[in-house]
């Protein structure tokens, strides 16, 4: 590939990466600095089946606990989105048992009251904030649980739009709440019951059913390839 020299970032040490020592589930290994936690596991020769999903920070499969050098705090991260550093130790988090309520979202009569039937532990939040600290998506989980209990479903649904359902908020809860599942229920209820029905959508569905576009379909589907291509070119 032809490149102008001025465009080249001259950092040969990256071509020959600096190695760091990390600890994977208790075993020390040397890996290149800056690769992600999942890539470090591959580099160390570990096959990962449980714990890998989208590799893009969206699916929540790779919930991981880690500590960094000289810091006593156990932190949480998504392994596909976090770079390793020297002295880091980590272990992947298995999915924790959480009781998911089952419900027919469309048939709920009183979704805000039903929350207490489906998740009776939700109002027992003791405000300890562990869930918020555990969230790798920086959601104010504790605030969300409180808002859910107080019926502010709209705020909860907005706050949890970033939730990847990694479940890291669940094992840390001293009241045994699964905040992500509470939020999922609340968001769905908000969408199905407390959000205005879009009039334009119903109009369009009816137009299609009533055959409003039939003539146009007939016209274009009869066109020759050339005519159709020319017609497409006129669509602006």
């Amino acid at each position, binding site marked *: *590939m*032809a*490149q*102008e020299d*001025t*465009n080249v*970032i*001259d*950092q040969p040490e*990256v*071509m020959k990466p600096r190695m760091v020592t990390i600890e994977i589930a208790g075993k020390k290994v040397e890996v290149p600095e*800056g*690769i*992600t936690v999942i*890539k470090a596991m*591959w580099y160390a*020769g570990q*096959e990962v*089946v*449980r714990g*890998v*999903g*989208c*590799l*893009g*920070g*969206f*699916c929540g*499969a790779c919930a991981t606990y880690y500590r960094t050098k000289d810091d006593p705090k156990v932190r949480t991260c998504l392994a596909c*989105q976090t*770079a390793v550093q020297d002295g880091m130790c980590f272990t992947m988090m298995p999915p924790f048992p959480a009781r998911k309520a*089952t419900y027919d*979202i469309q048939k709920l009569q009183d979704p805000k009251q039903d929350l207490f039937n489906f998740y009776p532990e939700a109002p027992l939040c003791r405000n300890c904030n562990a869930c918020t600290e555990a969230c790798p998506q920086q959601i104010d989980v504790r605030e969300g649980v409180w808002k859910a209990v107080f019926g502010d479903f709209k705020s909860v*649904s907005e706050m949890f*739009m*970033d939730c990847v*359902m990694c479940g890291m908020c669940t094992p840390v809860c001293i009241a045994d709440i699964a905040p992500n599942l509470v939020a*999922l229920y609340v*968001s769905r209820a*908000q*969408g*199905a019951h407390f959000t*205005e*029905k*879009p*009039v*334009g*959508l*119903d*109009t*369009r*569905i009816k137009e*299609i059913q009533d055959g409003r*576009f039939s003539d146009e*379909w007939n016209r*274009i*589907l009869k066109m020759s*390839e050339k005519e159709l291509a020319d017609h*497409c070119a006129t*669509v602006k």
Partner: protein
Amino acid sequence: MDIHALQQIVHKTRDARRQQTIPKFSSEDRDQLIHKYHPDYRASAYRPIRFGPNEGDKTVVELATLLEGDSPIQNNADLTPHYTTDVLVIGGGGAGCAAALHAHAAGSKTILATKLRLGDSNSVMAQGGMQISVAPEDSPVTHFLDTLKGGHMQNDHALLKVMVEDGPAIAKWLLELGVLFDRQADGNLHVKKGGGSSKPRLLTCSDYTGLEIMRVLKDEVINQKIQLLEFAAAIELLSDDSGACSGAIFKDLDNQRHVVVAAKSVILATGGIGRLHIQGFPTSNHYGATGDGLCLSYRMGAKLAHVDTFQYHPSGAVYPEQLIGALVTEGIRSEGGQLVNAKGERFVNELDTRDVVSSSIIRECEEGRGIRTMSGRVGVWLDTPLLDAEHGPGTVEKHFPAMMLQFERFGIDISKDPVLIYPTLHYQNGGVKIDTNSETNVKNLFVAGEASGGLHGRNRLMGNSLLDLMVFGKRSGLTAASRAGSIKQGRLTLNHLQQFREDATKHGNVSGVVSPMILPAYTRKVG
């Protein structure tokens, strides 16, 4: 030179560029550009498939090798079923969940089997949105024409008509399930404009459209108590005496045991092939996207369509190294984000179709106007701070929270600094040929979603994939369910495999690999 120093050119040229309009290419220029720079036209990367339903058709070497690969199952394998069902759905992404939910709702006993966890898929990563013609100035016909134009006029008209017409009803279904699409002040659905589309048509849930839809669908699959087989990788289909599909064999990834499922019909929703890294490209795809469904259907005699064309999403991250291949959503360009080369110049209309934009980025880099990172990768700038400059501070953060977070983790604030991008292998335009009910030429074998082919022609428009999944997931689920009532469970045989092996032998067993791949081999082996 340090990457931060190289970024300065973007800041310096921003004001001048804002005044500029770049016309779209004429169709001649566009063809010329694509033929010269699009990876689909690199002849050396392709070879003909040696035998089977698509004998003689060209596809990329990586895929051809897998299609001709041998099954891990012996001809005389024990086929005593572990499970029996009406409808077997293979794949737990958007198409699989939609198929399972509709088949279940129609009263069929349904099993959903998936290689990793329920929901692990490309669907969950879809950021840009879902194209549905809901705006008053738009129509399904316009959606059809835009898509046809984007697909180089090669789209299957019947499939495409069905998709654009079913779209609005799909939006309604999702809303009823509780999906929170963005709204306008008047309560109507908010629509954005996507590359290659003449009208704003993208339904979005901020930049988490796929995640939001999948959270809801997964929850619904669990609520409906649909039987799940997770960590079960499909490794062979079963055929009855007439050649119709009658079930599948899975490999349980926990204990490596084979699991046989007898089914009256099978819906394959196994997604795409990004993780084959064809032509050495990085990919935006999830870990399991290794084209399993193509191999399985092909061995069964299903015809493939357009397997010589792939979509390279124009904006895959090139820096930092940890995000290689990850998508920088097209939404950024929809809202005015400009592409800038090392000289600070724009070089393409950012809202042209993906193949055109990708080709032009490759051109810039090959002609020496790219920016090289410290690890030797090359890319061009995407001017993300321009959005804040244009629409007010906070715009990037408000409209693209997922992107912001993804880069923030590596100390990059994309509202202040541009990001470096290069095309990333994103989508398999072709796949198993289907009819409007999602059925293949193999009876009782349905394919839905990215594994199917024909609908998108030779290039897919942004936002059409999420709709494809839902429409053909639904159609396959409903058709399979309605048929289940009237047909008997077919005999479980591997007759098709015998036939396939005879063909392979005739052609010298050239492939030498066992397929499907199941998972990519990233684990480092030393010594």
